[in-house]
């Protein structure tokens, strides 16, 4: 076995590297060489390729997402804004709330149960990382036609996965969406939202500060999950004998995550961490480079200390493994013993894998060989940024001109009856209980509103009755007709749902599900939708605190409906004053508001 070390990279500058197979563009590879002043080692190449991917770097969306910050209304409530794992808002009484929605679309198509399950697991860890106790989840879902063959495979699996993971974590599911449209056949959307609660002083950030502080990896062991792509690299550097089978799907272990949550909360309560980051997509590559990049020094990590589930993993693969249920913390040396004690109490394995240095490099060794030596910012925060070309599609005018006036209208009672029956039978309007009855909505004892209400609501302070309400909405058909207005409608609907539950809307999260950003039509939809959402947020006075972009949702050349899913969070001083849907008692009066 040979390791491609930094020394090797210096000595053999001309080695051909599989940057294209790893999804890098020629100029991106050239930039890596320029940053390093040499060719990257295969471990460095692995890190850059995954961190500079669309998924991690937001390279196509960044220039548009900026508007959420630039146009953000002044808000006293914002404690932590966009850019961290999730935004944090002040909800009064010393309480803070963090929430975010994320996508796990593609994995859920490949393996519906595990894809959806690990989607929930990922967003819950994001919330936990902020220092909060996760208190509820929601799941906006989109599928192909209800009677399509593949929907029969995907839908039950996704629902069972969302439930299987969330129920086992003990998080009430307080709402979501189930939408059917042919454009999602072959490309279901599985978005997952989590909300967490903490005291103001408990907010944690993902940064590695203080030279000499230790880097601790804890949670599950590292296996070959989700590193299909990087095996290209491994097979180059390694001999043929090792097992090269690398699973492309991750399997979730909700029990592990549950104990990880309790373990982290105990660690937080004793103030034992300086910074913390969860390991999601891009695994250790992401966690180490982001922690170091946001910190005040460098970091040194001994990769061979990482506990492995599969001992045959190469350093490249360990860096890219997407094994679930892992966290990385920065801990002062004097507190490490207590930290490890708490982990042991919860049977969570924890290993010191490195330390914060007073340099400015991220250095990673493998059995003594230096295999990574990079400026962490160049990996985590200074990836490529694209101004993708976009243009209003040629078909947009025709689509908009095709107004409902041209549709046949029922002219008599039979015709109306027929329309009504078709509406009632439509899966999009049908009762969602088949889905929601598979989710625990009672656990934690704080759920004040859940299905079939317009918004979910949880109590966060039992003494005062302080609570938060959440709703998610999105309508891809509106957004296709007019992405600018469609995104605004999604926001308006979620906003109304929160308001009608009796809460005051406070902050926004969003998951922007679109086709390929390399298609100017799609890019236009994306640009318009973000512009619309940012404008509407300013208008309504609610800031975007975080979210997620999912591109490349398409089958062949055909993109899904542009689907911005918007989540709104509101607060209510006393949940006893919530307003449920439905008429309460006889004799109450009914008013119609609005135009």
């Amino acid at each position, binding site marked *: 076995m040979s390791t491609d070390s930094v020394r090797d990279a210096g000595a053999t500058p001309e080695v051909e590297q599989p940057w294209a197979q790893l999804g890098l563009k020629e100029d991106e590879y050239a930039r890596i060489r320029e940053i390093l002043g040499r060719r990257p080692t295969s471990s460095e190449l692995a890190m850059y390729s995954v961190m500079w991917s669309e998924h991690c770097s937001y390279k196509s969306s960044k220039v548009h997402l900026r508007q959420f910050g630039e146009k953000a209304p002044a808000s006293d409530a914002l404690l932590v804004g966009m850019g961290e794992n999730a935004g944090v808002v002040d909800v009064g009484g010393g309480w803070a709330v963090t929430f975010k929605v994320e996508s796990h679309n593609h994995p859920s198509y490949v393996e519906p149960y595990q894809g959806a399950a690990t989607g929930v697991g990922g967003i819950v860890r994001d919330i936990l990382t902020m220092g909060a106790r996760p208190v509820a989840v929601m799941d906006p879902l989109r599928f192909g036609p209800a009677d399509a063959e593949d929907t029969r495979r995907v839908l039950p699996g996704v629902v*069972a996965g969302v*439930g*299987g993971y969330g*129920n*086992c*974590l*003990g998080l009430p599911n307080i709402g979501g969406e189930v939408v059917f449209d042919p454009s999602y056949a072959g490309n279901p959307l599985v978005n997952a939202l989590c909300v967490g609660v903490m005291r103001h002083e408990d907010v944690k950030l993902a940064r590695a500060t203080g030279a000499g502080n230790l880097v601790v990896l804890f949670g599950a062991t590292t296996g070959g999950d989700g590193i299909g792509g990087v095996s290209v690299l491994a097979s180059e550097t390694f001999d043929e004998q090792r097992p090269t089978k690398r699973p492309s799907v991750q399997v979730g*272990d*909700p*029990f*592990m995550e*549950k*104990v990880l949550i*309790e373990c982290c909360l105990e660690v937080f309560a004793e103030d034992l961490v300086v910074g913390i980051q969860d390991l999601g997509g891009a695994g250790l590559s992401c966690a180490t480079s982001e922690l170091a990049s946001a910190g005040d020094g460098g970091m040194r990590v001994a990769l061979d200390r990482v506990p492995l589930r599969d001992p045959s993993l190469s350093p490249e693969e360990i860096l890219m493994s997407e094994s679930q249920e892992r966290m990385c913390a920065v801990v002062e040396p004097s507190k490490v013993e207590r930290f490890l004690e708490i982990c042991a109490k*919860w*049977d969570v394995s924890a290993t010191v894998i490195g330390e914060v240095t007073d340099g400015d490099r991220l250095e990673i060794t493998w059995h003594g060989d230096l295999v990574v030596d990079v400026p962490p910012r160049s990996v985590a925060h200074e990836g490529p940024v694209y101004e993708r070309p976009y243009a209003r599609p040629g078909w947009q005018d025709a689509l908009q001109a095709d107004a409902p006036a041209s549709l046949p209208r029922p002219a008599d009672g039979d015709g109306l009856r027929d329309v009504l029956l078709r509406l009632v039978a439509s899966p999009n309007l049908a009762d969602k209980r088949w889905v*929601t*009855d*598979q*989710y*625990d*909505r*009672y*656990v*934690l*004892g*704080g*759920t*004040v509103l859940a299905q079939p209400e317009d918004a979910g609501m949880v*109590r966060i302070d*039992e003494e005062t009755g302080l609570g938060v309400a959440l709703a998610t909405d999105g309508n891809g058909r509106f957004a296709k007709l007019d992405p600018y207005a469609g995104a605004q409608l999604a926001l308006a609907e979620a906003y109304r749902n929160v308001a009608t539950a009796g809460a005051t809307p406070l902050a926004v999260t969003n998951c922007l599900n679109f086709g390929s950003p390399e298609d100017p039509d799609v890019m236009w939809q994306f640009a318009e939708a973000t512009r619309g959402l940012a404008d509407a947020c300013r208008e309504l006075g609610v800031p975007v605190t975080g979210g997620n972009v999912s591109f490349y949702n398409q089958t062949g050349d055909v993109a899904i409906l542009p689907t911005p899913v918007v989540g709104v969070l509101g607060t209510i001083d006393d*949940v*006893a004053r919530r307003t449920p849907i439905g008429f309460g008692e006889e004799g109450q009066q009914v008013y119609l508001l609005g135009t």
Partner: protein
Amino acid sequence: MRVGVVTFPGSLDDRDAARAVRVAGGEPVVLWHGDDDLRGVDAVVLPGGFSYGDYLRCGAIARFAPVMRSVVEAAHGGLPVLGICNGFQVLCESHLLPGALIRNDVRRFVCVDQRLRVESTATAWTADYAEGQEVVVPLKNGEGGYVADEATLDRLEGEGRVVVRYVGPNPNGSMRQIAGIANERGNVVGLMPHPEHAVEALTGPTTDGLGFFTSVLHQVVSA
């Protein structure tokens, strides 16, 4: 009046059970699975959840926890013990209660507001109800189908040890619609539905579940 609530790794409704004890007027006491000290409590609740992930069989691993040695011993001595959902499964695995719980016949996790009939008030946990009283409390589980051999079922019925029964369509395939049972002495009760989620009008479908917790308080006070 101190009621212990056990936390196993993977317990989920432990804080809710503690809240229910508090709402009923008792003092909840945290008990840790790895500790065999019952801290002098007057009763014990084994809460719902997925102890150890419930990957093997629900309650199978939790049964071996150090705390369970003490619970089993104390239960034999007459200590009131209530097992809710996963707790019921642990009680069956520990042989404090007969039978077993298997995967729901619908093969899905089911979360519904369930109507139940209280069949026996001769237990430490149901004395505050009226016999035949119907209540609605949440039911939420994936493996709630109660099974036992015919002889055991007949004995349970004959001895009045079927404590609660599902009313209406059978939600999970439980034999004879059994939702909960008691041991011979009536101090140990296990049931699949969750009375601890029906103690506050705001967060539960009803407050019908409160009776389980007030019953045990009254029973211990009068004992």
